[in-house]
């Protein structure tokens, strides 16, 4: 064990950075101006949430969070596809 | 002896190993999910790799059969390197407050008509230097690309064709 809590600092930095990214994306979600901008904001947000969940996994040292991250990635992708299809076709499943 | 009808049905159903790349990918992903090399998981991975492409045969396009393996490996590293560089470029444009990027639309004519090659080309265009592939037109065989910062659309289209499409054609055709 060495005295430098280097990983702790890096972890805290990553938490702050990803959290700030989430806030900025949320700002784009509120501002718009178009519906498709909001879809893009949601897309960015789910990717950042995956990063956040993985960071929590590192901090608590468990592999349980991995499955949550994978699920969020899967559902986020499907949500983006469905929303874009809805905007371009007015229908998700033809 | 088989009836012609049966043979026709078998052809439509496809063989066990018609999509080798897909089979290997499925087996590898299953092993990654299970994170083990236990006999049961190995057997199930092989079963998945053989059965799923056969069942999904009707939905799949032309098989994904990489030809030049060495070119494929070298190409993978070129693309990974370009991804890192492209991230730096985009990061510089984003963070420099004085930067004024000149966006433009580029049409890239396609020389290849292989669905796998086109899919990979579109994916690579999106993940590399300041370009996003927006519309893949399979009637006029071209890709509409939006570039973040470019002053010569013609040169950029030529560069995309030279750097990515040529090796892809080598690999797939």
């Amino acid at each position, binding site marked *: 064990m060495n005295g430098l809590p280097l990983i702790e600092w890096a972890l805290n930095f990553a938490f702050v950075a990803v959290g700030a990214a989430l806030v*900025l994306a949320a700002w784009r979600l509120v501002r718009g101006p*178009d519906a498709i901008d909001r879809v893009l904001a949601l897309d960015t947000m789910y*990717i*950042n949430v995956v990063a956040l969940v993985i*960071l929590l996994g590192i901090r608590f040292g468990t592999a349980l969070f991995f499955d949550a991250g994978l699920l969020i990635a899967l559902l986020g992708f499907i949500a983006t596809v469905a929303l874009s299809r809805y905007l371009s076709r007015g229908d998700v499943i033809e | 002896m088989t009836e012609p009808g049966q043979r026709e049905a078998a052809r439509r159903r496809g063989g066990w190993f018609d999509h080798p790349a897909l089979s290997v990918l499925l087996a590898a992903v299953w092993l990654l999910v299970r994170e083990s090399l236990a006999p049961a998981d190995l057997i199930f991975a092989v079963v998945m790799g053989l059965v799923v492409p056969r069942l999904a045969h009707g939905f799949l396009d032309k098989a994904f059969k990489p030809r030049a393996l060495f070119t494929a490996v070298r190409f993978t590293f070129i693309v990974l390197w370009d991804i890192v560089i492209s991230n730096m470029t*985009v*990061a510089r444009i984003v963070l420099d407050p004085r930067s004024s990027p000149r966006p433009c639309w580029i049409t890239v004519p396609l020389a290849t008509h292989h669905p796998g090659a086109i899919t990979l080309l579109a994916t690579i265009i*999106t993940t590399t230097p300041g370009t996003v592939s927006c519309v893949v037109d399979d009637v006029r065989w071209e890709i509409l690309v939006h570039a973040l910062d470019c002053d010569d659309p013609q040169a950029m289209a030529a560069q995309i064709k030279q750097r990515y499409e040529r090796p892809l054609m080598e690999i797939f055709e």
Partner: protein
Amino acid sequence: MALDEIHGVWQVVIALMLVVGGVFALVGAVGMLRFPDFYMRLHAPTKATTLGVGGVLLASMAANWGQGNYGLHELLITLFLFITAPVSANLMAKAALHLRVPSKAPVPEDQPRP
């Protein structure tokens, strides 16, 4: 075994990957906030976030290895994100073109709007 018992050099590597991941995630979001039209905004998240999450996932994998659990689980999420990010970017761009979202650069006239 805890995080701070990992070997020193390995700690530096993990910390570096975490910082790189965080910075790129932030850059993606800043770009999305800053650029003037939708098509330019599309660039920032599709690139920067994949590398951002990629860095964090690699760090997670390295941290697990440093603590003696060898696994490749995280590669799965990275692979998934790398495959899906271009697909969703393409779909969003198509939707934007269809909705005639204004673009700073002139869209080619003869382009069939999907």
